[in-house]
């Protein structure tokens, strides 16, 4: 069907170009600025006489009543769907007059029984589509040439009855309507784009008290003491340790439009005890921000989800579902992280419970884990997780990335048990 449509659309373009320009063979410009267009286009409604593929098939059906559609079969034949098979030659002739059939390759012509003319299906579609396509859960509508039906893709089964009622109200018979489950269509987006609903792995933007702007990664959505929000790094806040009411935006600040959260928890770093002299310590580089921001817009959230990309890619392919927390993290465990700068990278945990100084600061991190895998600036806050259930996009959270070092390239992360301990119990799925 797609191949046929593509070919036919190409044919339409060829026809328009041929009739509109080549047949004129003139350098003269018409004073009214209108170029020659086929008569059939002139009769179509809408600005600029834009004619869709469905419009063309409906035109054929008007010329040949009972023409239900046409498509290229798997065997390469051109299949005509006809209410009355005896009119197939007329339908073929009408198709040839409208399309440049030389551009459509087919081996033979077949006729298949249909119930409805394409113009009838198109009429029903036009009457209902504009009312239902804006509804949540309706992904697409289509006039299915192969099945001679109106096909509706829905992502939410609970809306099916309402949608059926809308079609019945304009007289669509039950056998002219088909439903199928469909995933919501998302434009190609990357971790650095503005994406709703928000999920782990996306870019976030915030400002220091001095007004400097920074980029980090949203770790994962969580509920803390019953409040919805997300976890990112403590150092991805106004001041590392303590709450400065940092405002977070996704992907970039644009007034309040992209404001998604407000910092509400970032435990203080402690001195003394196990903490070396001159250092301040914590067990996790984690802070919590509530969502939405009390002075911001409503924010759609994909709770329990992490954006899914290919390794070393930023392009979002879908989401991972968080099944729970991975506690503890074992040496040798295969984990991955997804961050706004380097996307997804994978490696095995090669150190656990390591104490380390942090470059350029007096921060000392206790009991951290490392993974020899790609990392880049802006990945701070990335969720670290392992794939479970045989790799069908289900994961368990191991923690949150905060640092990187070279020779070899390694990322450092705070494990989930310590994040949980310092932010108090989090619900993540």
């Amino acid at each position, binding site marked *: 069907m797609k191949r046929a449509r593509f070919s036919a659309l190409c044919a339409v373009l060829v026809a328009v170009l041929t009739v509109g320009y080549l047949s004129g063979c003139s350098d003269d410009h018409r004073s009214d600025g209108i170029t020659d267009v086929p008569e059939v286009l002139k009769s179509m409604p809408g600005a600029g006489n834009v004619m869709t593929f469905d419009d063309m098939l409906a035109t054929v059906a008007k010329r040949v009543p009972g023409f239900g559609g046409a498509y290229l079969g798997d065997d390469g034949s051109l299949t005509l769907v006809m209410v009355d098979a005896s009119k197939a030659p007329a339908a073929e002739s009408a198709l040839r007059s409208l399309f440049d059939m030389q551009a459509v390759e087919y081996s033979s012509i077949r006729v298949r029984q249909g119930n409805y003319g394409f113009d009838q299906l198109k009429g029903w579609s036009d009457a209902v589509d504009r009312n239902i396509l804006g509804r949540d859960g309706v992904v697409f509508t289509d006039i299915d040439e192969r099945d001679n039906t109106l096909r509706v893709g829905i992502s939410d089964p609970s809306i099916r009855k309402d949608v059926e009622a809308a079609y019945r109200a304009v007289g669509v018979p039950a056998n002219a309507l088909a439903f199928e489950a469909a995933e919501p269509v998302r434009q190609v987006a990357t971790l650095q784009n503005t994406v709703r609903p928000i999920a782990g792995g996306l870019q976030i933007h915030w400002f220091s008290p001095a007004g400097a702007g920074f980029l980090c990664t949203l770790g994962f959505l969580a509920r803390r003491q019953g409040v919805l929000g997300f976890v990112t790094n403590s150092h991805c806040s106004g001041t590392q340790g303590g709450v400065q009411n940092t405002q977070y935006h996704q992907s970039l600040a644009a007034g309040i439009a992209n404001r998604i959260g407000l910092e509400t928890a970032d435990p203080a770093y402690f001195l003394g005890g196990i903490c070396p002299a001159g250092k301040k310590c914590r067990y996790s580089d984690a802070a919590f921000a509530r969502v939405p921001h009390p002075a911001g817009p409503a924010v759609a959230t994909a709770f329990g989800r992490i954006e899914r990309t290919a390794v070393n890619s930023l392009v979002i392919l879908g989401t991972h579902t968080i099944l729970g927390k991975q506690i503890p993290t074992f040496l040798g465990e295969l984990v991955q992280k997804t961050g706004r*700068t380097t996307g997804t990278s994978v490696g095995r945990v090669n150190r656990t419970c390591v104490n380390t100084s942090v*470059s350029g600061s*007096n921060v000392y991190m206790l009991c951290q884990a490392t993974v020899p895998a790609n990392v880049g*600036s*802006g990945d701070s806050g990335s969720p670290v997780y392992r794939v479970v259930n045989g790799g069908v996009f289900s994961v368990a959270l191991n923690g949150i990335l905060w*640092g*990187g070092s070279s020779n070899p390239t390694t990322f*450092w992360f705070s494990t989930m048990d310590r994040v949980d301990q310092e932010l108090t119990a989090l619900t993540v799925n």
Partner: protein
Amino acid sequence: MEHMLVRRGYSIVFRKRSQLKLTSVFMIIIAAVSAMMGGCTAGKKHTDEGPLTCLVSIQRSSAAEGAVTFRLTLANRSAGALDLGLQGNPAFRFSVVTNSGALVWESTGSEPVQQILELRTLAPSDSMVFTCTWNRTDTRGHTVPAGEYLVHGRVELDPPLTARATPVLLVLD
């Protein structure tokens, strides 16, 4: 008064003896601030320098065995504002190597760097200054002997911009 000579292809900065006392006081202040900040600091200063350049200079304390402060200036020489992405915290790196290229010390060491990305706009003729104090010990904590060394400095920027300074000669007494 500060003089700059070119020697063996590298720039060298030194001060007249009469300036050392004042410099020492200045250095103590910088060192104290640096210690609070973990050894290295980043600041911003307006200059009249033109191009986007990365320049390392050296400020020495009076004590021969004392700390040495490195200063890296990143200036916008273009006519328009530059949007910079400063990679990591800290985004700057200093290193000291021998004349034969052996690494003696580097500011980030082997410690992990926070993977943050700072967005800054550098206006025409504006500059950023980064300083870092070296306590004259090598990567193993041993005091570095007298001799000639090269000081490298760079700022990690989002591509395509780069900021790498011409190495500067450091003579330790």
